[in-house]
């Protein structure tokens, strides 16, 4: 009688805390669970009673990686509720900020969290000995993306230049040109890292499970900032109708809510965006998708990693194009649009690196928030992770426990979940 017990407590190389539990007996899975034990954060409660000017600053604290996306979803919800219109320049600068966030997050995820699995190491640290040049490129790219955020948002994390109706400070054309030049110069570095991932892409398991893919869609662009909600199953939906899409529910083994729409689960994130918007990717992004054999509709969740790499190229190319457009039209010293307070409700949706994000606010006539709802991409992916694991586990029981554990860990990491954040402090023994 053979039994398998895999219990990964606090999976490494993901954000926050999640556990993987697998019990199998004689080739049959008895229990397979993706458990999220994180405590609730209560953002939707404590923003009630706060004025509209504070919401984007408060909710940007939901995440340290996707703080730009949270700020923008928040601002869009506030602007929709209060009828605030923004200029074309503001829209372009916000798109740039989202590209900066995408670059920052995807570079980090692939370079630090995924690459060790592909190269047979426990973490990025041993990679310095074997792939120093590529590690240096990752660090350099990360730094550049951070500095792009500094420029547009006032600092790397938790934007301070964003406001309802616009920006409190805009970058100069000279500053944008400097970012443009540095990014153009960095593209070969991205290609060098991509070549290493391509050389090791065979280590991504060839697992397929068809599911529904959901993300923003637009006729004009590969949608990150604006659009309708698209589904590979049911087509286009209005952002205001998001509750009928996400359908949040509770499960006993998780403190996070799960979601479902047309099927028992759906997937959001880079692979969902790729499947929905492939035609609108930049030329270089499509070229690199082709090198990996990635084409829509891809139903292998491990390929979310490759879709993120493809998006790095897209974000880089679109950033160059946007900056060229801003410089040629001239960057104006605009102040945020005037706000006339009124009661209202609005929903804002943007794509953050991990998927589509919704913020929904209701304000009273004095601009005070009376109700808020936020649906995070990682929440939307939990059920898909669970069902992926249920389909995958029976097919890998013939492997060693160590291999099973790694395969399941890589599955969860492929989603790039952002569960929460935790404390740190040093614990050392010192020389006397």
């Amino acid at each position, binding site marked *: 009688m053979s039994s398998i017990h895999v219990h990964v407590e606090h999976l490494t190389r993901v954000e926050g805390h999640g556990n993987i539990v697998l019990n199998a007996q004689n080739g049959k899975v008895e229990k397979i669970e993706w458990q999220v034990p994180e405590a609730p954060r209560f953002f939707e409660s404590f923003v009630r009673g706060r004025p509209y000017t504070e919401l984007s600053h408060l909710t940007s604290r939901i995440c340290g990686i996707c703080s730009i996306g949270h700020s923008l979803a928040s601002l869009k919800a506030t602007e929709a509720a209060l009828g605030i219109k923004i200029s074309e320049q503001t829209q372009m600068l916000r798109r740039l900020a989202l590209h900066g966030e995408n670059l920052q997050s995807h570079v980090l995820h692939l370079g630090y969290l995924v690459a060790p699995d592909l190269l047979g190491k426990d973490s990025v640290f041993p990679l310095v000995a074997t792939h120093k040049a590529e590690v*240096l490129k990752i660090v350099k790219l990360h730094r550049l993306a951070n500095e792009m955020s*500094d420029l547009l948002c006032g600092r790397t994390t938790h934007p301070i230049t964003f406001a309802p109706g616009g920006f409190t400070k805009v970058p100069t054309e000279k500053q944008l040109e400097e970012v443009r030049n540095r990014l153009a110069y960095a593209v070969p570095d991205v290609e060098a890292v991509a070549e290493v991932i391509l050389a090791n892409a065979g280590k991504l398991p060839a697992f397929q499970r068809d599911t529904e893919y959901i993300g923003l869609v637009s006729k004009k662009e590969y949608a990150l900032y604006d659009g309708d909600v698209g589904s590979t199953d049911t087509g286009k939906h209005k952002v205001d109708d998001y509750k009928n899409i996400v359908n949040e529910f509770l499960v006993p083994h998780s403190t996070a809510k799960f979601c479902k729409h047309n099927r028992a689960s759906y997937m959001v994130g880079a692979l969902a965006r790729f499947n929905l918007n492939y035609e609108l990717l930049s030329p270089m992004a499509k070229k690199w998708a082709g090198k990996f054999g990635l084409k829509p509709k891809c139903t292998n969740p491990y390929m979310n990693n490759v879709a993120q790499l493809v998006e790095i190229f897209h974000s880089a190319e679109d950033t160059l194009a946007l900056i060229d457009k801003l410089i040629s039209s001239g960057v104006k010293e605009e102040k945020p649009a005037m706000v006339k307070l009124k009661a209202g409700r609005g929903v804002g949706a943007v794509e953050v690196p991990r998927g589509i994000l919704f913020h929904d606010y209701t304000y009273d006539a004095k601009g005070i928030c009376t109700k808020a709802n936020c649906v995070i991409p990682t929440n939307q992916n939990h059920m898909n992770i669970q069902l992926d694991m249920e389909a995958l586990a029976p097919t890998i029981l013939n492997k060693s426990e160590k291999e099973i554990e790694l395969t399941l860990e890589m599955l969860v990491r492929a989603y790039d979940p952002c569960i929460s954040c935790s404390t740190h402090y040093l614990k050392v023994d010192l020389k006397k």
Partner: protein
Amino acid sequence: MGSKKRTCKAEAHSAVISKAKTAVITVGNELMGDDGVGPAVFKTLERTILPRGVALIDGGTGGLGILHLMSGYDRVILVDCCDFGGKAGAVKVFKPEDVLTKRGNAKFSLHSLDLLGLIEFGKQIGNLPRDLCIIGVQPKKVGMGEGLSVPVQKAVPMAVGAVLGMLDVL
């Protein structure tokens, strides 16, 4: 969750680098009890007149971004909560090479990273300041909750004093 970054000067961090060669970087989470000692030291130093050429940086809750914050400086003083087996509120100044063993698992996340692991990583990729030291404050309690314990509150002026003392000899 999430990290914040502030500088005591109005200029952006990248503009300050070209002028200052020394940085004091505080690290910690104000929502996790004594892990907030770094931010507490920052707030005190922010009200202090520091020697010319010294940048004071709030490193937030740490993470890989600390590597970039240290970049471009010759000398960096890091201030952080640190369990070195001392009495609660004790302050220790040490260099990374003084560490015999790290107790507890090194974590790797995009938000927070074992500081010594980060320093080791920076050293391996050749991206560390020439002179780096850590001012550690022994916590009484690290866990969810605002406010420092009494011994660590009393340690804040000592940690600030240690920073200022080091700046005088640099």
